[in-house]
């Protein structure tokens, strides 16, 4: 499955400057592992050392907080859009 991932500028800096990149996988976790393999500096800012979501970012799958849909286990489909947002905001 090929999905589109939107990165905030603070993370784009770790992905060669690209704000929008493609990733592949059957789940969100697989897609993030794919990005981690291709962009080693980005990887630790998307997933922790155990492969779980990095705590200072929130993942939105088609504009919905993915924690309501199984987190990294959430299935993704061709054309899905994932937006990564820094967790420290608001309030």
């Amino acid at each position, binding site marked *: 499955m090929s999905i589109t991932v939107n990165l*905030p500028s603070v993370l784009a800096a770790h992905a060669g400057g690209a704000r929008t990149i493609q990733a592949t996988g059957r789940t969100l976790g697989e897609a993030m592992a794919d990005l981690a393999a291709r962009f080693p500096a980005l990887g630790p800012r998307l997933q922790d050392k155990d492969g779980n979501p990095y705590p*200072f970012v*929130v993942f939105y799958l088609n504009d919905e907080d993915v924690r*309501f849909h199984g987190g990294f286990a959430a299935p993704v489909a061709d054309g899905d859009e994932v937006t990564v*947002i*820094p*967790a*420290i905001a*608001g*309030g």
Partner: protein
Amino acid sequence: MTATATPKTKRALRALPLRCRNCGVERGAAPLAICEQCLGPLDPVYDPQRPLPDPATIAARPPSLWRYREWLPFEGDPLYSEDSGFTPLVAAPALARRLGVAGVWIKNDTVCHPSLSFKDRVVAVAINAAAAFQLDTVGCASTGNLANAVAAHAARAGLTAWVFIPEELEAGKVVGTSIYGPKLVRVRGTYDDVNRLCAQVADRFGWGIVNVNLRGYYGEGSKTVAYEIVEQLGWRCPTAVVAPMAGGSLLSKLRKGFGEFLEAGLVRGTSPRLYGAQAAGCAPIVRLVERGGSTIEPEVPHTIARSLAIGNPADGVFAARAMWESGGWAAAVSDDALIEGIRLLAEDVGVFAETAGGVTVAAALALARAGRLRPDDEVVLCVTGHGLKTVEAVTGVLPEAPLIAARLREVAALVERTP
């Protein structure tokens, strides 16, 4: 010879540099709230060698939050919002009897200026940060009180304000924002949807979104609640503080504020136990405190306490830590209980609070029933917003006033019937 007052020359305003709370990396002052290395929160760095005032010096300064300027994130003098803060601390003996404690005080931010909520404190700091960075546009994601504050402070500072709110807000919150002439935008969805959007807006447009990219400075304004409580109690700490939680920032900043005054030697003793209050229909921080752990589980809010309806609280983990470390706890209350809390506060203390104030009072009662408060406790309840902003919450539960003709005998009949 007649003495003439010489206008004091303002010292240039500069924001302090920043340090990551998570990894410790330091960087220069910037409209940036997250660490470029680890994405942790950035906090202002204060010079530990800076001269600090004594209580008498502070007490002689004008009655605003700027009397604590050595603990606010700037060098130089503020340019805007010089009248915010220093709200009354109101003794509440009737509430103390209800709670079974030695004393209760209401920190009454329903009369914070200019927009009648504690958000005037954080925005007073943020608007000066925007000035220090020469930003001409500010903004926020808001459940209402922050929208009021950003619009009001921006109007006075002559800045453009983009204010984003969820579609379902109380009329008072909407009118109390739009009256100042901001660019007000209603967004379909919950506050959490608005917040996500604003994180993207800050990244895209380079504006000073007060609770996104100015957040490291903005949050420091909340500490002034703690400073004022200490000063107004006669330079001592209460034993317990109960405060409402939305994003959770106020709890962690109360902990920081009391700690800074203890460290500065302005007050002796120990930091108060901190208790957080949420509505049961949106209580992710209360549930973290009760469950333990280090991760917030987000919720979809269902409560009339809209100013606290943040299902994904950014400071939830830090707030929980502040409560655990201080020996405090947390409580969630029903919407019916919060309405009763609003009425109790009005009838016992003469303070009309918005829904969040009702949550705080009801949570204090719940904590007392659960044995969390002690008979010798001196408790401060933080009441953070004015009741006229959320009249919908109580309109239907108050008795209807009798309607009479302008005749004395009708008054006499009423008096006769009234218990």
